[in-house]
């Protein structure tokens, strides 16, 4: 499930340390006073996660956490900040949070926990997919399927197809493809691109070879296949 990159923070007056940690980490966030407000200002694609500070107003904080989990569009990545005396509160509430951090927190610890929490969200729960005309590339697992069948590619074929499929409809010269996909170390020349395009077309099969179009005396373009779905 895709989400926005927005984190909801409770309560509405986060500590300066928390604000600094979030801003330095480059996170986009919004502090709210309760579940209603969280619902109202939720981004269209949903919250990426929640940071709930429990040490000032534990009762409302846990209520907020519960509200986030009970919604249809439950928030997946929740971290709670608790003081040492509140550790007992965590018991029997395992379902309400994914990670916790003791207050006062060390900024580097919180930063590391956030990074871990959200990176696993990105990679584990919503793999990045490139989809076009029946072609699906899973950027996380490197796997490609075409009309539901596995498409076995070599690394460079995969990289080339990924680049083209991420930029459908755009025309690239051989030189552009060579520098963007192969990088500088490659000496084979622009014909390398032709050879790989031919292999990709072969693997896609005759009837779909047109998915990668030759733009005469310019280069190649992905998509706008006459046969594409």
């Amino acid at each position, binding site marked *: 499930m895709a989400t926005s990159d927005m984190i909801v923070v409770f309560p509405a007056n986060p500590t300066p340390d928390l604000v600094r940690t979030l801003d330095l980490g480059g996170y986009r966030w919004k502090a709210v006073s309760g579940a209603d407000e969280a619902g109202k200002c939720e981004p269209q694609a949903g919250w990426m996660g929640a940071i709930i500070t429990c040490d000032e107003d534990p009762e409302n904080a846990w209520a907020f956490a519960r509200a986030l989990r009970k919604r249809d569009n439950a928030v997946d990545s929740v971290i709670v900040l608790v003081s040492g005396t509140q550790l007992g509160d965590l018991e029997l509430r395992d379902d309400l949070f994914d990670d916790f951090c003791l207050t006062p927190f060390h900024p580097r610890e919180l930063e590391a926990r956030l990074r871990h929490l959200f990176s696993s969200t990105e990679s584990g729960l919503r793999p990045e997919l490139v989809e076009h005309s029946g072609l699906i590339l899973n950027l996380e*697992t490197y796997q490609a399927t075409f009309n539901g069948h596995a498409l076995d590619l*070599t690394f460079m074929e995969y990289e080339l197809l990924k680049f083209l499929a991420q930029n459908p409809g755009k025309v690239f010269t051989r030189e552009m493809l060579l520098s963007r996909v192969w990088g500088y170390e490659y000496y084979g020349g622009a014909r390398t691109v032709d050879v790989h395009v031919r*292999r990709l077309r072969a*693997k896609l099969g005759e009837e779909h070879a047109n998915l990668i179009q030759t733009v005469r005396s310019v280069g190649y373009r992905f998509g706008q296949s006459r046969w594409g779905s």
Partner: protein
Amino acid sequence: MMDQHRDYVLRTVEERGVRLVRLWFTDVLGTLKSFAISPAELENALEDGMTFDGSSIDGYSRVQEADVLAVPDPNTFEVLPWVDNKAAEARVICDVRNLDGSIFEGDPRQVLRRNLDAARAMGYEFLIAPDMEYFYFEPPVRGQIPVPLDEGGFFDLTTTDVASSLRKQTIRTLETMGIPVEYSFHEDAPSQQEIDLRHTDALSMADSVMTFRMIVKEIAAMNNVHATFMPKPLEGVQGSGMHLHLSLFSGDTNAFYSADDPNNLSPIAKSFMAGLLRHAAEITAVTNQTVNSYKRLVPGFEAPVHISWARNNRSGLIRVPIPKRGSISATRIEYRSPDPACNPYLAFSVILAAGMKGIREGYELEPEADANLFEMDDAALDKLGIRQLPQSLNDALKVMETSELVQEALGEHIFEWFLRNKRHEWREYKTQVTPFELNRYLKSL
């Protein structure tokens, strides 16, 4: 880049549920060799190579140290399309190295790499497109003349369909493995097929030729048909060649093309051709390495016999095809003597070495051969100073033995082993009493 390659391969093995990884390499005679490892061993193999005993491999044997390393080239990793998806298998082509990581001189792939590097140092990339010919037969019976599918009689009406459906299945498999096909058709002889591959750099092409032979045989065998790359399996019909379309590129420019020449051949192309022609006899034992190869190189079957070039005569050793109008990158020459039973790594190596020598030393290209040439008898040709290709494996070995060019191109280890092995083959052949002799002499003498 290399690390990413490795990760990609490891990840693919995991995601596709690959159960077995086959490490492929080639012996000196051009036979594909393979051993399998489990996916768990692959990471280690990609990092450090896998040790194996080289003494049982033709041409790898050495006196002191038998163990060598197979080092997978992650570029060549492919899932095998004909294996059941539930227990997927993959192959990866290996370079063979000594245990200390240095280059193993018995590995044909290393030989080709070395020759390509030498050309690259002069600014040239070597491109090849082969026309692969082969036959389909009914499963062979020892000592019997092979039976083509088309003439089987048993299935008269359906056998042509069998051959063409096999060919289609083969092409689909080739393409799935990243080997694009340019054309394919039924050749002149009964049950003979031709599949022309799209050009690519010579190292990838040598890998592709090895894969091609494997796939053709595998698909045929799965249908209880025997596919063979034997150069001349049937008397009286044409044999199987592996015509090679060759060009050199310098960056993105076809170094063989010139707008100023009536044939659009650049001085580089002409010197390369002159090199090939001058050294053709020396390299023939490598491009045509079996006793049987020389039964193909006879007049009357579109196979070259004389050392000559021509624009559109298919009996010349080098043909210069006329490329489609305006297609600069398609300017190329076609070297017509090699057969598909050769070791492609070694054949490409000696061909490149001969051509490059022509370029380095600025050889002059002789004039194009007169069409009448192909009708003349030997005496008339001698008078004109036109040489012939070696007439037998024995002849070819004699010329090769004296060739510094071939020795340098192959390296001493392979050069000597090859000569020894092939002399032995010739000796064995020489002691045979053939049906020809019995038919001709037994009664009359």
